[in-house]
């Protein structure tokens, strides 16, 4: 039977200093998978900023595990104590949890699903890894469709975008004004842009900021993150800017500490002001929501892992079932040939009817043994049943 082996490390087991030593780009991941797959095995490498995992499907699980450990240790010898090693059902369950985002730093994050897809595409894939990766992608999609685990913002920048959506609905065509160009404000702006908003101005210099009230009449979202020691935008300036807005709403996001935007702006009609504390509270709230949804997601993933286990276990008995059916078909055809003298007198439709009836008898006789063998395979008696069937029907003798 082909066994499934997983060797890897993640943010749960290794610090960033160690993880970055074994992180692989796409080409390196593809090359490593190809190397591990030599000798008729299957292999795939999943490498992200939080994990590097090698999945190998092979007849000799111990050897496959040793090779995978050696491959990672060749990148960084110190990584070995931080490696986890999982087999068959546990390995599949782990991959399904990873694809569903349940093993991620932020539960339910969506990027991992794409990374699992890439690992599948770049791997040296055979029937077992193809099945387990496809089912993992299915489990990941199902979790996101049937739970709310990925629906709420998990970062300050996503929280800012979610708040803007609560005010405007769609952000398509909304214009953004950036006050200062820090990393966090860039991320927030990127998040808004991914939802259709456009950056209309980046006011970085003091001169640009002094004329900001002119721009306030036209923009929809202001994101501030300067290093200024005091307020950059006073409520009085915003009041002046609001005159040209004709009641249009304005969302202001203050990511700076000390704050750039006058807290009194939040009191103005049509102005919605949020500072870094507001956004962080949303993220905290969101994470607790995601954790609650993760309980439902675990049940979905467990059910998918069970399905994979049933399929994987059935591989034990599939050759015996195939041999048994081939043997039965062989006997049926031989007996029909023997009866050729009698059947020769039948017309074409009668011959077809006899053929169908005999085929039906064979199928009905073999249906229950086939089902029972697959059930036995799931309960770990599969090999015993397969051997018994081979012995009872003389299947090995035929093959000899």
């Amino acid at each position, binding site marked *: 039977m082909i066994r499934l082996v997983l060797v890897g490390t993640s943010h749960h087991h290794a610090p960033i200093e160690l993880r970055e030593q074994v992180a692989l780009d796409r080409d390196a991941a593809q090359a490593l998978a190809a190397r591990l797959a030599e000798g008729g095995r299957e292999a795939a490498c999943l490498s992200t900023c939080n994990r590097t995992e090698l999945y190998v499907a092979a007849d000799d699980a111990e050897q496959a595990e040793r090779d995978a450990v050696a491959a990672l240790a060749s990148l960084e010898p110190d990584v070995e104590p931080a490696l986890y090693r999982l087999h068959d059902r546990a390995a599949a369950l782990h991959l399904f949890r990873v694809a569903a985002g349940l093993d991620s730093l932020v539960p339910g994050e969506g990027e991992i699903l794409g990374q699992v897809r890439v690992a599948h595409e770049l791997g040296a894939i055979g029937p077992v890894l193809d099945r387990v990766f496809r089912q993992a992608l299915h489990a990941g999609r199902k979790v996101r469709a049937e739970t709310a685990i990925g629906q709420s913002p998990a970062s300050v920048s996503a929280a800012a975008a979610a708040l803007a*959506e*609560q005010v405007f609905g769609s952000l398509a065509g909304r214009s953004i004004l950036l006050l200062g160009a820090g990393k966090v404000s860039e991320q927030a702006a990127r998040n808004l842009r991914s939802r259709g908003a456009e950056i209309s101005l980046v006011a970085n210099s003091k001169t640009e900021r002094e004329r900001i009230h002119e721009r306030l009449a036209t923009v929809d979202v202001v994101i501030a993150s300067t290093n200024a020691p005091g307020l950059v935008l006073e409520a009085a300036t915003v009041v002046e800017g609001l005159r040209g807005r*004709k009641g249009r709403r304005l969302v202001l996001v203050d990511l700076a500490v000390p704050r750039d935007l006058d807290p009194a702006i939040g009191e103005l*009609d*049509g102005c919605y002001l949020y500072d870094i504390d507001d956004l962080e*509270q949303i993220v905290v*709230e969101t994470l607790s*929501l995601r954790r609650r949804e993760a309980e439902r997601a675990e049940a979905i993933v467990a059910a998918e892992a069970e399905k994979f286990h049933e399929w994987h276990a059935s591989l034990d008995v599939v050759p015996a079932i195939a041999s048994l059916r081939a043997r039965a078909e062989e006997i049926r055809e031989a007996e029909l040939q023997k009866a050729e003298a009698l059947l020769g007198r039948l017309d074409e439709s009668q011959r077809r009817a006899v053929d169908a009836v005999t085929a039906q008898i064979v199928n009905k006789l073999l249906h229950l043994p086939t089902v029972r063998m697959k059930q036995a395979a799931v309960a770990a008696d599969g090999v015993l049943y397969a051997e018994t069937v081979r012995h009872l029907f003389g299947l090995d003798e035929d093959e000899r």
Partner: protein
Amino acid sequence: MAELLFWPALLLYGEAAVGYFGEVRRPGRAGRAATWGVRLGWLAQTALLAAQAARDDGFPWGTWASSLSLFVWLVVSAYLIWGCRRPYRLLGLVVMPLAVALLVIARAGGGTGSASASHYSNLFLVVHVGLVLAAFAGFTLAAALSGLYVWQERRLKTSPATILRRQVPALATLDELALRTVAWSVPLLTLGVAVGLVRLVARGDRLDALIAATAVTWLVWCAYLGLRLLGGWAGRRAAYLALAGFVLVVVVRLALPAAHFA
């Protein structure tokens, strides 16, 4: 027979009203059950109204109480257009308890039973009563949207941390929908009132308190439309004006009824 249909309608609307309160506490199942309560209750009330119309062979909602029953049906019909969508479920928190209360009042006033013969023609009743009630149903819905706007805006200003716990339409969407609903309702009211005035002049009748209050209501909603379309009003100010307009609708529908319908 028609009488019997009142109870399932009332019970299902009641279930919906309770369900929407449950939706506030824990979004999900209660909201879905409430939405089904609205749908099935609406079907029961539709059957009730159809049975009334068939029995009386005409327009049986010319009295104050029976027109209230028709008004409830129109409000729920208008709500059903959006209410089935998840973000709008909380509108039911305003609409459904109101529907239950008005249906009970209509029943108490004999509005779900057999109607006495009206001296008005069916055509006049359909146009005048039908249009005025349809407009009032629209104003009720616009007020519910505005109420939701005020509530959601307050949450956005004071407690953003929990804002994503409940799915509520964006402020801009609520504002726009309220405007659109009023934009449809004002012409209906204008036409309904005009037909009534023509009839009033032709018969040489005198103005009564209800007609005066309806005229004030019409003025307020026209002002709402004018201020929004020409004066640049939007958001909270417009929402408060819509709520004030709704107070007048309540006065017209409930406080000044008897003489006009007599």
